[in-house]
């Protein structure tokens, strides 16, 4: 994690709002000067190079932003130990020789170097060559341009604040399932409700930043209120890491706005951080289209075996007991749109989880629901709803069994 003191320098507190000074296009010129200066220092001592990079550049740069960018560059680049002998061996041979022979320093180095088949000068140079402060600089990763450095630095700035978040509220449209799943995977409490349509300005912003066209209805979104269990008893930033893990997921929503309550000081003062679609942040790897191998196999098998049915990967969330449920699939008959089934794959489960899920499904008065339950999890018949359509599976869901029920 990057030092929070640096994050504070790149942030302004306006009222109770955190205003982040993102690196933008205006900064690309000095970022280019920074990476050029780095390239000139390849092969030199890393600690010396990074000290130099913090000094004024050929192209003037805002000081706080420059320090932040240097810190990020330090994390994105590698160091190499450049030594005639492996430094660990050099240390052991030298320091044991010094302990055993009461001789002047030069002689100790000479004796030790003979043991390692090198000369005293090379041995001395190797002593600490593998330590961060002594290592030499490697070339920049090929793909690292000033633009990418800026996006990466911005994302790290957001993450640095998110680590101090007590809870977040996210309003998102499209690809929201992954967001909910991520929150629950980390044991966060996620209260979900339907959100109104996005405003035109943010819709245009999303399109402007090259996001995929919506696969869902553009007027439907969800509002997530996310916090950790312990937050009931005290203000805590223990869930900061889990909350910051939501950012990469949010960036894959078609549109989103995230508001986090972040601690700004040790005195526990709080301010709001707002991140939204269109902010200049690095978007990570594309999310896997399926949450598990079982889902992926089922989708492939079903599409092949049932051409009459349309398989919807992320169906419309179902409202139940003031919250939303995200079914895994919806099966819609191509010629008869009234024939619709929701399919839920229950892989890893606990009695509490299953109980809760069934309670919600029943409350939503859903009749056409298929539950696929992993038989290796030992779910007893008594724990399942009497009226539910159940398919037991072991590693692979039998598509013919599904078709027989629908």
């Amino acid at each position, binding site marked *: 994690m990057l030092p929070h*003191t640096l994050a*504070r320098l790149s942030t302004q507190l306006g009222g109770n709002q955190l205003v982040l000074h993102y690196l933008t296009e205006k900064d690309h010129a000095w970022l280019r000067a920074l990476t050029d200066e780095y390239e000139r220092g390849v092969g030199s001592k890393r600690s010396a190079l990074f000290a130099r990079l913090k000094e004024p550049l050929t192209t003037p740069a805002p000081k706080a932003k420059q320090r932040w960018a240097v810190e990020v560059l330090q994390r994105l680049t590698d160091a190499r130990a450049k030594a005639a002998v492996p430094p*660990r061996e050099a*240390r*052991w041979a*030298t*320091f*044991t*020789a*010094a*302990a*055993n022979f*009461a001789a002047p*320093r030069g002689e*100790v*180095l000479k004796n030790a170097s003979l043991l390692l088949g090198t000369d005293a000068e090379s041995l*001395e140079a190797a*002593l*600490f060559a593998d*330590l*961060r*402060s*002594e290592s030499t600089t490697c070339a920049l990763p090929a793909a690292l341009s000033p633009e990418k450095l800026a996006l990466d630095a911005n994302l790290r700035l957001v993450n640095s604040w998110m680590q101090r978040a007590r809870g977040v509220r996210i309003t998102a449209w499209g690809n929201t399932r992954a967001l909910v799943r991520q929150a629950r995977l980390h*044991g966060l*409490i996620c*209260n979900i409700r339907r959100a109104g349509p996005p405003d035109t300005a943010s819709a245009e912003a999303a399109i402007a930043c090259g996001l995929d066209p919506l696969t869902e209805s553009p007027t439907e979104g969800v509002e997530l*209120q996310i*916090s*950790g*269990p*312990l937050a*009931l*008893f005290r203000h*805590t930033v*223990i869930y900061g*890491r889990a909350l910051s893990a939501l950012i990469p997921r949010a960036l894959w929503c078609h549109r989103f706005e995230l508001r986090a309550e972040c601690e700004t*000081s*040790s005195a526990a003062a709080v301010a709001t951080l707002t991140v939204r679609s269109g902010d200049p942040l690095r978007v990570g790897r594309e999310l896997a289209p399926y949450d598990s191998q079982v889902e992926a196999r089922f989708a492939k098998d079903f599409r092949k075996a049932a051409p009459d049915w349309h398989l919807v990967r992320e169906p419309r969330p179902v409202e139940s007991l003031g919250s939303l449920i995200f079914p895994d699939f919806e099966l819609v008959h191509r010629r008869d749109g009234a024939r619709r089934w929701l399919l839920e794959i229950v892989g890893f489960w606990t009695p*509490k989880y299953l109980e809760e899920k069934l309670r919600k499904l029943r409350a939503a008065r859903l009749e056409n629901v298929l539950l696929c339950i992993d038989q290796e999890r030992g779910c007893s018949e008594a724990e399942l709803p009497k009226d539910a359509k159940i398919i037991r599976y072991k590693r692979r869901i039998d598509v013919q069994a599904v078709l027989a029920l629908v």
Partner: protein
Amino acid sequence: MKLLFDHGTLVLTEAPDLSRKAIPGLLWDPRVELYRAPAYRYAEVVEALRLLRLPLTDEVEPSGAAAADQWRSVELRPYQQAAILAWQLAEKRGLVVLPTGSGKTRVAAAVMALTRARTLCLVPTRALLNQWLTELSRLYPGAIGCLGDGRQDIQRVTVATFESAFRWMPRLGNRFELLVVDEAHHFGCGVRDEALEMCVASHRLGLSATPPNGPALARLEELLGPVVYQLGVGDLAGTWLADFDLVVLRVALDRDERARYDADHRIFSALNRDFRSMHPTGTWQELVAAASQTADGRAALRAWQRNRQLVGFTRAKAAAVKALLARHRDAKVLVFTADNAAAYAIAREHLIMPITCEIGRQERERALTGFREGTLRALVSARVLNEGLDVPEAGVAIIVGGTQGEREHVQRIGRLLRPSPGKRAVVYELVTLATSEGRRATERRRGLAAAHARSA
């Protein structure tokens, strides 16, 4: 009604209205519409529900835990036996305060053997993690789990670093009945306290040589229990701990260093004076926060930092280290510095092994073994050797500089106190005259004197 563990908390499902019942820590959680309590209040919650005669299915602890292996017999000194008895009498909760080198790990092992409970031991560093694993494996024949330093293995007896425990406790907090916290003084001040809150273990043992005071101690008592047994260095020195002499060597800055020191000192003093005139009772943190707002303030803080670095390893200190290492050519010497840069400078000049956070685990272990066996005669470290690491053979310490105050000083001197026949340790403390270090050194020695007479 079921009581379940939920990510570091307890939840009650199918519960009747409990809003008018006094159940410790239990609150209604409107987010999930369930009652919830912090995990560390598990025993109190269960007790309260039983007193109310409410039907309760307790599903907090996972079933199917492996049976305990038989512990080997743990030999104890009289004061260690007394500490364990005091802990048992305090309902198996509490803090045992013993000086460094007096065998706190052995007390913990004896408690584990006595209770045969599923145990999680928390230690502050990776170096201590490995030391605890080695120590426990001598006394416990079963598999010992490890969380930290790249390993994630949970067993009936598991050792974890504070950092790993903080990350894993929401998932593992219900698996242990006994929680042992080494160097417990790191808790109680808010940072990482949640790790202790999210564990259901009702038996808790904290170990420390330097317990905190005031609110931090009160918080520690809430999370681990009260101080149940306490001895100072003075109680054990000469019998169970080695005696030691503390020699303070006052050294001066040379002309160039003095000029740089005075120039930077003037810059910082001006800031400090202005701040004190506005906020006579302001804390150091408040001063830093205020100074960070302006360019002049930031320059003053940089000046202060430069002076700390300068005073930490002056030319006179370098000369003193050279003379002392030559004088104790045949002794096992530990050198403590204020930062890694000074440690490397000394290591390079005198060809002695540095033990820093940048030196890998295997190499560090090899160096410690080499030091014990005599293959290496001296070690130099900024912080890694400060706490807990076992280097019983060390007879001489040279304290070149420090940044962490009284507690660090007591812990460092403690490294030398592990006894051996006829041992009398020597501690050299290098203090730069007419600098802020003089005042800090006086405070450190005051802390040491307090630790010396802790039980009096």
